């Protein structure tokens, strides 16, 4: 049976892993390869590395660390940040990343999704969506969230963009629910359940994990394929082996 995936997310800035609360106030939490190996040993199913400064500054990810990670670990990993062209994607994929995730550049130029899917297959194209609920009750997309001073609220509705991204060739969607991110009160089940109804490719929940029960809830209620978290793993508050045993005890298929 296909397992539900647990994905630690490592925000990378200037070659180090950092973590902020609600996408702000970043603190260094460790070296990239050290953390990648630690999570691999603990049983992470996949890793995501977001170069959170890449898009706002208009620069590409530095591929040296991608190759170092690819040499060191034997689980899949995805790289996000500043991938703006097929050439950028090729560089990161050839350095050893299994998937690339595009977010702000896909909003700037939606054709990018299809171009990368055409060149390398839909299976390596992840579209990350940063979403926040507005006062009128609609979830809308945010752009350039890596830098609060440059973050933009778009008129584009999250669910419309998710459908468009799939149609254009996204092989997976990561829905970053900004309203719940960093506060450890649980995933945004309401938004994820609505997204799940419309999402035909794998869906990854992001933002809000604080306790093992939150993972149980998001797999059971929102039927997501994977759950992504950062601070609860970096701090050691949730150990992945403990989390996986808790999920299995609740009848959720995981890889032990």
């Amino acid at each position, binding site marked *: 049976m296909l397992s539900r995936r647990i994905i630690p997310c490592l925000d990378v800035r200037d070659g180090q892993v950092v973590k902020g609360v609600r996408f702000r106030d970043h603190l260094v939490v460790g070296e990239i390869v050290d953390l990648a190996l630690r999570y691999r040993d603990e049983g992470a199913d996949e890793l995501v590395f977001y170069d959170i400064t890449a898009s706002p500054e208009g620069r590409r990810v530095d591929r040296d660390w991608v190759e170092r990670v690819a040499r060191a670990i*034997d689980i899949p990993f995805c790289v996000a940040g500043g991938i703006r062209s097929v050439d950028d994607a090729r560089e990161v994929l*050839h350095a050893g990343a299994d998937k690339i995730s595009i977010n702000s550049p896909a909003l700037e130029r939606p054709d990018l999704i299809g171009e990368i899917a055409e060149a390398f297959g839909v299976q390596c194209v992840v579209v990350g969506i940063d979403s926040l609920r507005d006062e009128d009750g609609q979830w809308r997309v945010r752009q350039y969230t890596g830098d609060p001073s440059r973050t933009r609220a778009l008129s584009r509705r999250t669910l419309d963009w998710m459908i468009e991204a799939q149609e254009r060739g996204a092989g997976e969607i990561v829905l970053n629910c900004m309203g719940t991110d960093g506060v450890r009160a649980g995933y945004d089940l309401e938004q994820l359940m609505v997204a799940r109804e419309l999402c035909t490719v*794998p869906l990854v929940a992001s933002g809000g994990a604080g306790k093992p029960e939150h993972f149980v809830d998001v797999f059971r209620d929102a039927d997501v394929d994977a759950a992504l978290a950062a601070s609860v793993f970096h701090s050691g508050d949730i150990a992945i082996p403990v989390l996986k045993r808790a999920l299995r005890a609740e009848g959720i298929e995981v890889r032990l």
Partner: protein
Amino acid sequence: MTVVLVDAGGTNIGSVRYALQRLGVDAQLTSDPARIRAASHVILPGVGAAAPGMRRLDEAGLGDVLRGLTQPVLGVCLGMQLLCERSEESDTVCLGLIPATVRHFVSKPGLRVPHMGWNTLERTRGHPLTASLVDGDCAYFVHSYAVPTGDYTLVSCDYGDPFSAVVARDNFMGMQFHPERSSSVGARLLAGFLAL
């Protein structure tokens, strides 16, 4: 032992090479027919689409080179699909070494395509390649097309319906999942291939 990686333009070439390095084997990437023929083990990695993959092999004149090999040959992911007769992906004629047609997963409720993640391997037939597998072993899959099960299936996997996770016919073998990204299970399987 000389292990070569055949360049079909796949993006996982680096990952496969690093996985072999972790096993102490330095595999060289090549599209030179003489070096491919002289190797003890040949690996055809692949991530991408069937039509450009076959086009690249044909342009390098490697189709007949691969068909004529007698040493162990391993296709990984798209590389395994290219060993088959044809693929529904852009209706592509492939190498014809495994008697199967590669099919697109049919999307059903609750069955997301691509099939992405860790899934359980079920051994269906004994073979030295897969002797290391134990019950409950999982491997990492990322694909939208799959090889149906048949006489050539060594290991199956279930996603809506059973499909081939590992195939073998004579010296030609294939793994649909990514052994280079399947943790210790993948390392054991690659070691099993190198021991053939």
